[in-house]
């Protein structure tokens, strides 16, 4: 060990000579899980956090050789407690780089705290478009894909398959509406058309009556190639496939879906990450786990390459074209300098397999094909990053 340390100094003479401890903060706003029809298991209690924990273990190996200690502080705020009070306390204790799982409103309130001005916040859970557009904040980077990235990925797939006529069922929740809006915008962007649309009104228990209710409900939709469903909480959509009036595939929140990560992603070395996660967390890795994992990986990469770990250095490295972060998706991921969104390939998946990876072949872009997914520089409404005219 002595030998190792001595040689490490020789090799990495540019690194600081004394051990460096870098504090990372996990900050989570717990919410009451919304009621859903199914009685099957809901979100795991350590969703997201398990990804951050694993990633800290991963980067600790680089840290060990570079004499950097990564120190993860975990603050989980229960639904009954005040989020901002906890956030202020964390910031006062010295939190500078925060990996956050919180709804959009809480995330924004955190970012706008005077104490958070010089901090760097990673959003690992809120897909809301407004956080990347009019409500973007210079101190917030997004490791979770925006809704538009996911719906653009889906639209590319539909276009590529020649399934140009779609029908859409939208659930009653605000996030269903937001997903449906993003879907419609993506259909327009890629020249696809919506043949019919209905809101999901039923309150009956689909577990028993799906076979009776869904055919009738879908009977009057105009003919379509694929039935899209917006049900982001996973409430009713699971009862739709194979119960439709016409024999049509289902996509969107159910059936073929576009997500930042799911347990079926296995190529490009992803199987190793999935295995490590399963051993560490005793469950499969979900999109929010991956977002937290990749946020921590990006921080470590920025520290290693830029040589410093203050928020400003990390931020400017991550927003530069020098950032090439390994994320098991077949090509490096990086952050868009106009809105802080991480650009990444989006897996299009069923429950059992990756059907395709977006961007699909043939969707071209002048600079980076990943920017065919989500809000590109000319379309952004974000002004806080100073990267737009």
């Amino acid at each position, binding site marked *: 060990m002595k030998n190792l340390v001595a040689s490490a100094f020789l*090799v990495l003479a540019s690194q600081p000579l004394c051990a460096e401890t870098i504090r990372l903060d996990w900050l989570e706003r717990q919410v009451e899980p919304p009621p859903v029809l199914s009685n099957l298991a809901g979100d795991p209690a350590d969703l997201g956090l398990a990804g951050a924990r694993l990633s800290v273990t991963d980067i600790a190996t680089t840290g060990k050789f570079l004499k950097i200690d990564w120190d993860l502080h975990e603050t989980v705020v229960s639904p009954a407690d005040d989020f901002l009070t906890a956030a202020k306390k964390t910031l006062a204790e010295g939190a500078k780089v925060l990996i956050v799982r919180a709804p959009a409103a809480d995330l924004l309130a955190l970012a706008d705290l005077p104490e958070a001005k010089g901090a760097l916040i990673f959003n690992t859970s809120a897909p809301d478009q407004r956080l990347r557009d009019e409500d973007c904040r210079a101190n917030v980077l997004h490791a979770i894909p925006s809704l538009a990235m996911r719906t653009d990925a889906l639209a590319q797939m539909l276009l590529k398959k020649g399934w140009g006529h779609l029908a859409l069922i939208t659930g009653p929740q605000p996030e269903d509406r937001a997903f449906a809006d993003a879907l419609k915008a993506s259909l327009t962007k890629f020249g696809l058309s919506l043949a019919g649309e209905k809101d999901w009104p039923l309150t009956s228990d689909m577990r028993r009556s799906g076979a009776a209710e869904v055919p009738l409900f879908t009977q009057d939709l105009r003919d379509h190639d694929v039935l899209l469903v917006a049900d982001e909480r996973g409430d009713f959509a699971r009862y739709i496939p194979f119960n439709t009036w016409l024999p049509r595939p289902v996509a969107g929140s159910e059936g073929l879906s576009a997500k930042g990560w799911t347990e079926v992603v296995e190529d490009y070395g992803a199987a190793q990450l999935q295995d490590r996660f399963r051993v560490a967390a005793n469950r499969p890795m979900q999109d929010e786990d991956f977002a937290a994992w990749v946020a921590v990986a990006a921080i470590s990469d920025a520290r290693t390459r830029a040589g410093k770990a203050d928020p400003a250095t990390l931020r400017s490295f991550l927003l530069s074209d020098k950032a090439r972060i390994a994320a098991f998706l077949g090509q490096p991921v990086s952050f868009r300098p106009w809105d802080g969104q991480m650009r990444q390939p989006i897996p299009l998946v069923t429950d059992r397999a990756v059907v395709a990876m977006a961007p699909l072949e043939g969707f071209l872009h002048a600079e980076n094909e990943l920017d065919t997914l989500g809000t590109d520089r000319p379309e952004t409404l974000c002004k806080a990053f100073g990267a737009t005219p």
Partner: protein
Amino acid sequence: MIRALLLSTLLATPALADEIWVTNESDDTVSVIDVATLAVKATYPTGERPRGITFSRDFKKLYICASDSDAVEVMDPETGAILHDLPSGEDPEQFVLAPDDKLLYIANENDAVTTVVDTQSRKVVAQIDVGVEPEGMGISPDGKVQVTTSETTNMAHWIDTTTHQIVANSLVDSRPRHAEFSPDGAELWVSAEIGGTVTVFDAATQTEKGKIAFEIPGIRPEKIQPVGMLFSPDRTKVFVALGPANHVAVIDAKTFTVERYLMVGRRVWHLALSPDGTKLFTTNGVSGDVTVIDVAALEPLATIKVGRFPWGAAARPTPN
């Protein structure tokens, strides 16, 4: 060193039935390519997910990393029969055989460990803690230094083969995949798949001598992902497989400048030279084939269909 051995074998026997052996990761087979006819002359079953592949110095034994079988298999290349397994640790991905033919250094991708196995006693001699997801495995021509690179830790770990201790760690760009010593042992080359670069180290001091980046007109920088590397027979060039960029770069081994890019099949990962040094074979995973390149002309000669997702390649001169 290996090459010197190959050449001397060749001088003794005409190159009539030289072979290139390729592991097919998704088919659980190896394909045997006849170098003279450029046809697949045999396909043998292996354990699950074969990746790393190398021959013993006398070419009488073939070692195969059967990753999902958690074993290194030893095959008789005359018959294709699996003779026995070597204890390998979990999920062996890639390995390198010491020049004395005795010790095999195995990267255990899932365990962050390099396992050292004695090929004769079939016993594990040492396990060395390295970074997360070790893969690239190189050994100095004198056998004194083994280098393991770890994909997620982004480092090359220099291991003293006498003590089996890490003596130095060098940071490289993201996702290092392959480590290759120059034939004279003076340099270590490490490819970084996601970083898109190759770093050249002075092997004696472990200091960086140079870093090579790639640029191919019409191909996105993020598609350029260097993996396998091989020195040309005359040691003046280094071939670098560029993954989904579907090209092999030809680098001047002295100046570190890229001389040329050769188009090959899709997602090119590893490389092998024919024993006479005239042909380069590349494993193209996605297109499921092998491209043959004329080393003198630097032109592709042929494409050979093999199994699904060819991964590694190794050459065997067959004495007749």
